[in-house]
C-alpha cells in the first residue's frame, strides 16, 4: 500500500513561497516523476513528502492518514539521495540493513533480506566493503538496496542518477524501472532529464516556480500540453512558437509546432526560410532556419538530408499537430 495525496501543500522559506498550493494524487504502485527547471521546487516537494521539511500549510496523506506532524522516521518511506548518502563508517551489509536494524528486526531476518537485496542488485561480492571502496554505480546500487529492503510504502528518488556517466545512467534507469515494476511499490522520482521522465513515468508532474503546471502521462503531456510552459518544457528539441497572426491564424496568440512535425522540402511548402545551421547526427538532421516573420524555427528531419547553411528551404506543418495558445498562454482546446 502506498497512496500519497497532497492537499493544498505550501512551503515558504523566510519570505519566499517555494511551493504554492500543490494538489496531487499519487496512486498506489504508480511511478510519478517530478520535472521542472532548476530551482522550481522539485526537491523541496519531495522533501516535504519525506518529512525532511515541514509544510507551511496543507495536508500530506499517506494511505489516508495525514502525516504532516509525523517525523520522517515514522512515515514508512524510503529515499535515494543524489549524493547516495551512504554511511561511510559501515560496511555495505550494515548500510543496507540499517533500516531493518532501526526497526528492531531479528538479526536472522536482517541477514536474509540484506542478502536477497544484494543478490538482486549484484552487490553480493561487495557486502563487506566500505562505501569508499565502491564505484559510483555500485554506491548507487547500495543506496537503492537500502531503500528496498525496508519494504517501504513508497520510494522517493531525488535525481539519483545525475552523478553517473551517460552509459551507466541508461542502465540504472532501466534497472530502477524494472525493480519498481517487480516490487509494485509507489515511486516518486525527481529529475531534470527529459528522457528519464518520459521513459520511466506512469505520470509526469511538471512544476514551475513552485506550482504544478500539468499532470499527465508522458504522451498526454507531449500531445496535449495545457500551456506554453509545458509545451516548451516537454520535448527535445523544444517546440517552435510562432505568433498566430504571422502563421495565418489570427484566432490564436501563439501557435506551437514540434520540430519533428514539420516536413522540410527543397521544392515547395507552406512556409519558407533560409538554413542557418544544419546538424547531421546520422539518424536525424536538425535544421535551424531563419523563417523571416515567423522567427527562428527548428526542424527535425529523419535520416540524412543534404542541406547546408544558406540553402533556401520550404516547410510544411503536419496538420493536427499544431498547438494553439491564447494570449495568457493557455492551450485553446478545439471544440468538438
Amino acid at each position: 500500500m502506498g497512496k500519497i495525496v497532497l492537499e493544498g501543500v505550501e512551503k515558504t522559506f523566510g519570505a519566499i513561497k517555494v511551493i504554492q498550493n500543490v494538489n496531487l494524487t499519487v496512486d498506489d504502485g504508480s511511478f510519478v516523476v517530478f520535472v521542472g527547471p532548476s530551482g522550481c521546487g522539485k526537491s523541496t516537494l519531495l522533501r516535504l513528502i519525506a518529512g525532511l521539511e515541514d509544510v507551511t500549510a496543507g495536508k500530506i496523506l499517506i494511505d489516508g492518514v495525514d502525516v504532516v506532524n509525523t517525523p520522517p522516521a515514522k512515515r514508512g518511506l524510503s529515499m535515494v539521495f543524489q549524493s547516495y548518502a551512504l554511511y561511510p563508517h559501515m560496511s555495505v551489509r550494515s548500510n543496507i540493513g540499517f533500516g531493518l536494524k532501526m526497526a528492531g528486526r531479528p538479526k536472522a531476518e536482517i541477514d536474509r533480506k540484506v542478502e536477497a537485496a544484494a543478490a538482486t542488485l549484484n552487490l553480493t561480492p561487495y557486502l563487506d566493503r566500505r562505501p569508499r571502496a565502491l564505484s559510483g554505480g555500485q554506491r548507487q546500487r547500495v543506496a537503492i538496496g537500502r531503500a528496498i529492503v525496508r519494504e517501504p510504502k513508497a520510494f522517493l528518488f531525488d535525481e539519483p542518477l545525475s552523478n553517473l556517466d551517460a552509459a551507466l545512467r541508461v542502465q540504472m534507469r532501466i534497472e530502477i524501472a524494472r525493480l519498481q515494476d517487480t516490487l509494485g511499490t509507489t515511486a516518486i522520482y525527481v529529475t531534470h532529464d527529459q528522457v528519464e521522465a518520459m521513459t520511466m513515468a506512469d505520470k509526469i508532474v511538471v512544476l514551475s516556480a513552485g506550482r504544478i503546471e500539468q499532470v499527465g502521462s508522458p504522451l498526454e503531456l507531449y500531445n496535449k500540453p495545457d500551456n506554453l510552459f509545458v509545451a516548451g518544457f516537454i520535448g527535445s528539441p523544444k517546440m517552435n512558437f510562432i505568433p498566430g497572426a504571422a502563421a495565418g491564424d489570427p484566432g490564436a496568440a501563439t501557435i506551437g509546432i514540434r520540430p519533428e512535425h514539420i516536413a522540410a522540402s527543397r521544392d515547395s511548402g507552406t512556409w519558407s526560410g533560409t538554413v542557418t545551421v544544419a546538424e547531421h547526427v546520422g539518424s536525424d538532421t536538425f535544421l535551424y532556419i531563419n523563417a523571416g516573420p515567423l522567427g527562428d524555427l527548428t526542424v527535425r528531419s529523419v535520416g540524412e538530408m543534404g542541406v547546408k547553411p544558406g540553402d533556401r528551404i520550404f516547410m510544411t506543418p503536419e496538420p493536427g499537430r499544431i498547438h494553439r495558445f491564447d494570449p495568457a498562454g493557455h492551450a485553446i482546446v478545439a471544440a468538438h
Partner: protein
Amino acid sequence: MARAVSPRRKWSFTVLAWIVALLLFFPILWTILTSFKTEGDAILFPPAFLPPHWTLENFVEVQDRSNYFKHFFNSVVISIGSTLLGLVITVPAAWSMAFSPTKRTKDILMWMLSTKMMPAVGVLVPIYLIFKSLNLLDSLFGLTIILMLINLPIMVWMLYTYFREIPVDILEASRMDGAVLWKEIVYVLLPMAIPGIASTMLLNIILAWNEAFWTLNLTAANAAPLTAFIASYSSPEGLFWAKLSAASTLAIAPILVIGWFSQKQLVRGMTFGAVK
C-alpha cells in the same frame, strides 16, 4: 599537488620551527631540570642550566609532605568527569546548531563564546556564595560542575565546527531509515565525528587538568587537585623553587604523557575539515 620546496627554504623552515618549539617548551624543560636541583642550586645566580648536583630529594620530600596520589586522583576525576558531563550536554547542542540552525544560531554561538571573555574573578563572589549555600565547597562534584561549565563554550564551538563538516544528507538518510533522534546521534553522527570528538575531549581534559583559578578558590583539603598541590609549595614558609618544580613536574607528567601519545589524534582533530 605537493608543491616542490627548495632545500634551502625547507631548511630555514625547519630551523624556525625548532626555535619556536624550543621557546614554547623551554619553561617546561626548565621546571623539570630545576626539580632535580638542590634548593641551593635552584637559586644560583647566574643560573646553572643542568643541575650541578642531581638529586631526587625534592620528589621524596614532596611525597612526604603531601599526598600526591590523592591530588592526582582528584585531578583525574574532575577533568574526566567534567569532560564526559560536558559531552552529554554539548553533543546535542552542537547537533542542533549545526544541523537545524536558525537565524539566531550564530548569535548564540558568539554569545556563548563571549562568556569566555569575562574575567572569572568577576563572578567569583556569587559563585562562591552559591557553592557555599549548596554545600558544594571543597567537593569533587562541585568542581566537576564548574569546570564543565567554564569549558562548555569551547566544547560547543569545537563540536559545532566538526559537525558542520558532516554531510547533512547522511543524517537525513538515517532519518528516512527510521532512526529517531538519539539513534541518529549514536549510530550515525557520533561514529562519523569520532576524530572531532576525541580531540575535543583531549583538549578539554588538558584545560580542566590545568585549570587553577576555580580549583584553588573552591577547594581546601578534600577536593584539591594537582593545581592546588603545586600552589601549596609557594605559600606560607616562602618559595621553594626546587620543591615547587618537583611538584609541578609531578602534576604535568600525566597530561604530558597523554598529550605525547595522542598528538597525532590532536593534530588530526584540530585540522579536521581543513584537509580532506
